[in-house]
């Protein structure tokens, strides 16, 4: 891991707006299963107004599952969740649709529709949810492409774009309805450091310019430290800690430090516990040696 002091110095180069007092997302004791396997084990967290919340964790920690729950894409086993002040278990379908219109998402793969041009991809939410005329929609799509520095690419097909450009186009589509909350799944995964850093700047710019809350799932430490207002660290379906970058860097927790210093989990485990997990004593049904 980089020197914490250099991380904090770098963060000082950019002024950060204050997060709002209200929460746009509130999760209480969220439990979820895939089949019989428990993925999230009572997760509770909040995402504040105008905040960039980064969710981190190792592979299999449940961070992608948590993100899918925050986007209301998964059925939970138990717990409660409020998005933009609405309890999603209590609202009508119309209210749920209204909530959905205020969310934007940039998936890891971009998830652009391959049969549509970049411009058509960006205009789709406008076409589906507004009564705007075609010219206005085109102008709005061009404006969003300008924000993500992709002006002039509206007539290309997604297959003609590079990885970084696809992610930028996905951002443009995600923000076209001016969402209150933007979700980003591994925005810098698979990109070279220069492009990844530029995308981090874009996330910060979008928050500053549009005043939205942004939830980012990433395992890129540099990216997380650069953009986060607060970080949630997940480990095996449980929250290890939620805190500011300073608090995370100063954490004395072995598991937090192991994640920050990229130390494999087995190196920090008690040998007996590790052996027990390896031979399946905790869960005899899953071991077939």
């Amino acid at each position: 891991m980089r020197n914490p002091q250099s991380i904090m110095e770098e963060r000082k180069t950019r002024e950060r707006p204050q997060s709002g007092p209200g929460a746009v997302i509130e999760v209480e004791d969220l439990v979820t299963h895939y089949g019989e396997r428990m993925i999230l084990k009572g997760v509770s967290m909040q995402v504040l107004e105008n905040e960039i919340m980064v969710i981190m964790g190792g592979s299999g920690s449940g961070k992608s599952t948590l993100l899918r729950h925050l986007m209301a894409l998964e059925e939970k086993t138990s717990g409660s969740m409020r998005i933009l002040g609405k309890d999603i278990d209590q609202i009508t379908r119309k209210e749920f649709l209204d909530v959905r219109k205020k969310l934007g998402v940039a998936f890891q793969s971009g998830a652009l529709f391959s049969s549509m041009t970049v411009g058509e991809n960006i205009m789709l939410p406008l076409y589906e949810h507004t009564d705007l005329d075609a010219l206005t929609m085109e102008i709005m799509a061009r404006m969003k492409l300008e924000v993500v520095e992709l002006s002039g690419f509206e007539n290309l097909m997604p297959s003609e774009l590079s990885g970084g450009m696809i992610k930028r186009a996905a951002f443009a589509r995600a923000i076209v309805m001016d969402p209150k909350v933007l979700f980003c799944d591994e925005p810098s995964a698979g990109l070279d450091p220069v492009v990844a850093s530029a995308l981090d700047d874009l996330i910060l710019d979008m928050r500053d310019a549009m005043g939205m809350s942004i939830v980012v799932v990433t395992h890129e430490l540099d990216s997380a430290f650069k953009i986060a207002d607060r970080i949630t660290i997940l480990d095996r379906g449980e929250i290890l800690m939620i805190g500011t970058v300073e608090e995370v860097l100063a954490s004395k927790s072995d598991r937090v430090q192991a994640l920050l210093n990229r130390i494999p989990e087995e190196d920090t485990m008690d040998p007996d516990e590790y052996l027990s997990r390896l031979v399946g004593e905790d869960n005899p049904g899953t071991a077939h040696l």
Partner: protein
Amino acid sequence: MAGQKLTATQRIEGVGKLAVAFVESVGNGGIIIAESFYWLLFGVRERQPVRISAVIQQMMDIGVAAIPIIILLTGTIGVMLAIQGIHTLRIFGAESRVTVGIAFSVVREFAPLITGILVAGRSGSALAARIGTMKINQEIDALKVMGINPTRFLVVPALVAMLVMVPALTLLGIFMGLFAAGLYVNADLGISLAAYAHDTIDILSLDDLGHGLGKSCIFAVLIAVIGVVNGAGVQGGAEGVGKATTRSVVQAISAIIITDMLFAFVATR
């Protein structure tokens, strides 16, 4: 472990899982049909109407693009029926009555069947591949988060296009099959095309046409639903899409043939 013999319990468990998967697929199909008709009827009220442009695009892909192959194959089937019919009836010296066999076979059986099989191979597989690819690329999730119902956006246009184009292609297949058979009968038996057409119209009733077109509507729903269920069930990346596509074609063709037999049985009682 690979190569290990399965115990009786494991075999029973396997059969049980297959049965559950089958019931689940049928259930999913039923839900998709119900949901599709809901969006078709109430989409405007929900401010999510089914887009006519999407339906027309699907109709072009499913129907218009299939016209050449439908003409070729139903024409060939018509000629084949004429050859076989004349050959068989010649045994009894009744080859001039071949028109009866051709007319009933083409209108009630072969045109709907061949059209159904062709559309299942061309468009049912394409639908499964498209939805499967969209699923693994998270495009379906993107639609949901955007507040766009995937059934309304992806399934309804394909279903409506199938319901219009499969009967339309069947009608085209009927004309082509009868016309090609007529050309052969004219060449082999010297029966004029006018006499052949007169005989054919005389023999056939609107019920026969309804039988063929009714079946084709059922085939259309089967092809669309099987394609969607298989596409939506894709797991495991590109390999999963390939498997779903193959499964979709096999299941759709099997369903068409079995339904055809059941329909013929019920309709002739």
